[in-house]
């Protein structure tokens, strides 16, 4: 029997949650991720689709199928950001599909696998020129912002290498977030389907929490208190540093892990700082949203 998991038309953070709900409710079998009707994707949503495919294979031991988007525009964009190149490692496809577009991508960072510290170096090296152009010219950030941005990117990617126990992906893109903000944003999405925060921290910290130990308390410990799985007191600074920088830029920073999500919430979006009881999904899914700078007086 084939289980069909419909991929939402708008594959952003909300769309990913809907996909995770289907993923979590499934009981196994041959899966078909039906993305035919996808009309719009965000970095978080599209990296999430890869994560969902990887997690299905991990959970049920079977390679799922993917029906790609019918929209030529969306399919072309996915080619340019190397989605199909990575999707071929995780999904089965019916028929031939061109893996990578010859066209140049305008993404800040195409979907890139993170498997080692060297990958983190490569990402930081590669993104620098594009980040300078995008952050400076399009989003109005001062020149040193590109260095701070690279630190954010480096630290979120290292989270995979140091804590996930498996590989992950990163992608970054800028787009106009009309509905929510009416401004351009740059979005970084980093995901893995590894052990998650609760799993990573359990050995060192679960006992102290007793019955309260959960995805929610694990996220709070890492996100709010800088707790790490390592005894080295220098560990755990990465997330704290990202929070500080994202707050300075009035950005949004969220981490979803297991059944919980925690966030540093700016004033331009209504969101609970912490949610629990979400559909269970392995690993960690991180999103950073940095808004275009509004000059004094509110003009754009």
């Amino acid at each position: 029997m084939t289980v069909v998991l419909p991929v939402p038309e708008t594959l952003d953070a909300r769309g990913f949650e809907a996909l995770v709900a289907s993923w979590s409710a499934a009981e196994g079998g041959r899966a078909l991720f039906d993305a035919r009707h996808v009309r719009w994707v965000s970095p978080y949503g599209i990296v999430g689709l890869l994560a969902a495919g990887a997690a299905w294979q991990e959970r049920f031991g079977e390679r799922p199928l993917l029906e790609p988007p019918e929209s030529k525009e969306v399919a072309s964009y996915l080619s340019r950001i190397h989605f199909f190149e990575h999707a071929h490692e995780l999904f089965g496809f019916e028929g031939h599909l061109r893996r990578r577009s010859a066209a140049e991508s305008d993404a800040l960072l195409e979907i890139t696998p993170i498997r080692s510290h060297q990958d983190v170096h490569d990402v930081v090296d590669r993104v620098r020129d594009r980040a300078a152009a995008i952050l400076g010219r399009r989003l109005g950030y001062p020149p040193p912002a590109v260095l701070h941005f690279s630190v954010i990117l480096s630290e979120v990617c290292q989270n995979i290498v140091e804590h996930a126990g498996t590989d992950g992906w990163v992608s970054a893109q800028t787009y106009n977030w009309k509905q929510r903000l009416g401004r351009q944003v740059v979005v970084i999405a980093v995901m893995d389907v590894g052990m998650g925060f609760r799993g990573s921290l359990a050995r060192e910290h679960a006992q102290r929490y007793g019955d309260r130990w959960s995805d929610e308390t694990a996220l709070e410990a890492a996100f709010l208190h800088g707790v790490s799985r390592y005894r080295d007191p220098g560990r755990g600074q990465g997330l704290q540093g990202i929070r500080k920088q994202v707050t300075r830029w009035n950005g949004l920073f969220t981490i979803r892990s297991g059944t919980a999500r925690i966030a540093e919430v700016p004033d331009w979006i209504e969101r609970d700082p912490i949610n629990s009881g979400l559909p269970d999904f392995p690993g960690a899914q991180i999103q950073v949203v940095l808004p275009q700078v509004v000059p004094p007086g509110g003009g754009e």
Partner: protein
Amino acid sequence: MGDPATDMTREVARTVVRTSVATFYNNLVTRPTGQAVRSAIEAQLRSGRGRCVSVLDFSQVGVLDFSCADEVIAKLLMKYLRADRPSDAFFVVQDASEHHRDSIDTVLRRHKLLLVAVESGRPALWGPAPSRLRAAWDRLDRMGRVDASQFASAHGVNEATAGSWLRRLADFRVALPEGHGSFSSLPAALARRPAEPLQPPAGPYRAAAEQTAPYGSDTAGLDGQPPAGARGVL
């Protein structure tokens, strides 16, 4: 009256080790990279003898993330704060940008460490120093080299208090104890004896010592006991 620089170097530090903290990577990110940089700095320090001032030059560094700053700066400082430190090295950061400072300051605060930096030629004390200790460091920096009595007069405190502050600064290794109750600021010590070029060591790590200079006599003395590991003093 002798040459103040000669007098100072006889008792203070024999070498200045200048290290360009740029590796094959211009961007200092990830912990393994930080560990490699730290190892290279320590190797340089091992090759010298006696007390030295290690100048960490950040002018060629692009990105410095928190993990790498922790491995390079925090772990280096903590190791040389310990009573069983491998050698009597003091550290000064040079030509770090505002961005570098953000990352370094984050790790200094995490570990409650202090560090001397030279920013555009101007010395500064980085890290979470209590205001009175910072004021004491500022005063020492302006005076260059003092004993407790001189410091007490300048700072308007009694000699015992002045001595206690100077020793605290030395415990954090942001002041040099010179012997006979005198202390010197690190920038003042550096200003008195510029380093001379030597051959950089071979190896895969490009951030080798650029310059190591003979610096004073071999009979350098220390002032009293070695610092007792200043962690947790703040």
